[in-house]
């Protein structure tokens, strides 16, 4: 079954969607979108590093994203605003990564593949890494769920309950680094944040608890991956961007449906009141 590249691609997309969903929710709740962006950009340095040392891509990217996450977490709140620090580090890392890749002699790499992903080239090893990473992230986030949630709602309430908000933030950034590292093959450096944020944002209006929002985001992300894959096969369009287009379409469609439903609900209510 895994010999069909379309099936491997679909499984890879679904795996990334599952891992990205709960993390994406936290990124939306904590307004950390830029943090995800920065980690993803820094990953380019990881790509260069793995090519230089001829280690597996995943290892280099994970190392650099982790480093980036930890450094930014530690430095934040010391003289520079978080977004300034992230901007300095992320774009420096991206630039250094791109320059060092160009110096590698004898290696011709397809830069586009890292910027936009190459989900159709996912092999069996890649699939194992993606699902391994996704499961790891789900286990970490599931295990710390309540503590993470309370730290997100209010750090002081967390402290009074014996939870360290700083430690929870570190857990979150580590999980984020893992997702970036496994997702790079699927949607690429530039579109990872879209897979994190858009499904979560789409689920927001239809959820009453944090758990339903995360579950809905997972379903939306997974459906968009599979649908995007089909569309890109039909129309011969680049796969990563097509998946993101489908998620973006779902976001707009859900919002339109929600607005119409609310207006109709309000109308019914007034009509009922008039009848009474």
């Amino acid at each position, binding site marked *: 079954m895994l010999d069909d590249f379309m099936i491997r691609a679909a499984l890879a997309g679904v795996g990334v969607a599952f891992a990205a969903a709960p993390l994406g929710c936290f990124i939306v*709740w904590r*307004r950390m979108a830029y943090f995800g962006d920065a980690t993803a950009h820094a990953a380019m340095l990881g790509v260069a590093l793995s090519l230089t040392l001829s280690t597996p891509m995943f290892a280099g990217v994970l190392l650099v994203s982790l480093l980036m996450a930890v450094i930014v977490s530690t430095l934040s709140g010391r003289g520079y605003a978080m977004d300034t620090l992230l901007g300095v580090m992320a774009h420096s890392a991206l630039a250094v990564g791109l320059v060092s890749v160009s110096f590698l002699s004898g290696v011709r790499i397809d830069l586009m593949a890292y910027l936009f992903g190459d989900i159709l080239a996912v092999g069996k090893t890649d699939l194992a890494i993606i699902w391994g990473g996704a499961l790891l992230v789900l286990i970490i986030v599931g295990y710390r769920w309540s503590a993470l*949630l309370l730290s997100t709602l*209010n750090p002081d309430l967390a*402290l*009074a*309950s014996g939870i360290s908000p700083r430690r929870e933030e570190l857990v979150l950034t580590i999980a984020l680094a893992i997702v970036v590292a496994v997702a790079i093959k699927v949607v690429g450096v530039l579109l990872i944040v879209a897979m994190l944020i858009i499904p979560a944002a789409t689920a*927001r209006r239809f959820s*009453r608890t944090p758990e339903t929002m995360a579950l809905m985001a997972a379903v939306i992300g997974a459906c968009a991956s599979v649908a995007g894959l089909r569309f890109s096969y039909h129309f011969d369009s680049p796969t990563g961007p097509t998946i993101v287009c489908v998620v973006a379409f779902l976001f707009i469609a859900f919002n339109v449906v929600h607005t119409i439903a609310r207006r109709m609900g309000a109308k019914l209510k007034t009509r009922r009141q008039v009848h009474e």
Partner: protein
Amino acid sequence: MLLQTRALSIRIGNKPILENINVRVDPGEIVTIIGPNGSGKSTFLRSLIGALAPSHGQITRSPGLSIGYVPQRLHIDETLPITVKRFLQLPKTSPLADIREQMANAGAPDLLNQQLMSLSGGQLQRVLLARALLEKPNLLLLDEPTQGLDHRGAAAFYRQIDGIRQQLNCAVIMVSHDLQYVMRRAERVICLNGTICCEGKPETVGSSSEFQALFGFDGDDDTLAFYSHRSHHHESGPVREAV
């Protein structure tokens, strides 16, 4: 002893907020903290939960200490959907019966299925109180809990705190800006302005020159008139209201 601070000083950045604070709280005791804006009242409570590290001095917590903390305000981000019921289950789940009991205790029984974001200021205070009670605290920290309540609501809230205190036998440290209430009903008052300027029974604090300078009272002020009225009662007989 539940909790004790010795020579506690807190700096935020380079700015000294609290200087040389010595406070000891015993089980079941109720301590009311008053002071002008920016006098470090909230900072003091936040240092007790460990949100701010002392720049000098120390905080000793008894081994069995369990703190229920009610912050001054809680900003709920609109991106985070959460019902009251779910919020009360953070960080650990409690049986629904306990949740209903503490919501009733806090005076907000029928809010469980509402979104936290949709609550009014007073309702949110009560939900925060219920959540603090679910932790079965032996020390309750309340940061201006009557903020956003009208006079009658505030009086009811104070009565509830008294009831809760008797029921759970927990100590309370409460920040209040409600001088009328404090002078009438408090047991032990700490007047804070960067450092402790006076403390003791309301009568003692009310008559101290530091207190009068801080709150700008002259002799005719209502609160003080009321206080002297009370102390007059005290002299004429052991009439003591249940607090």
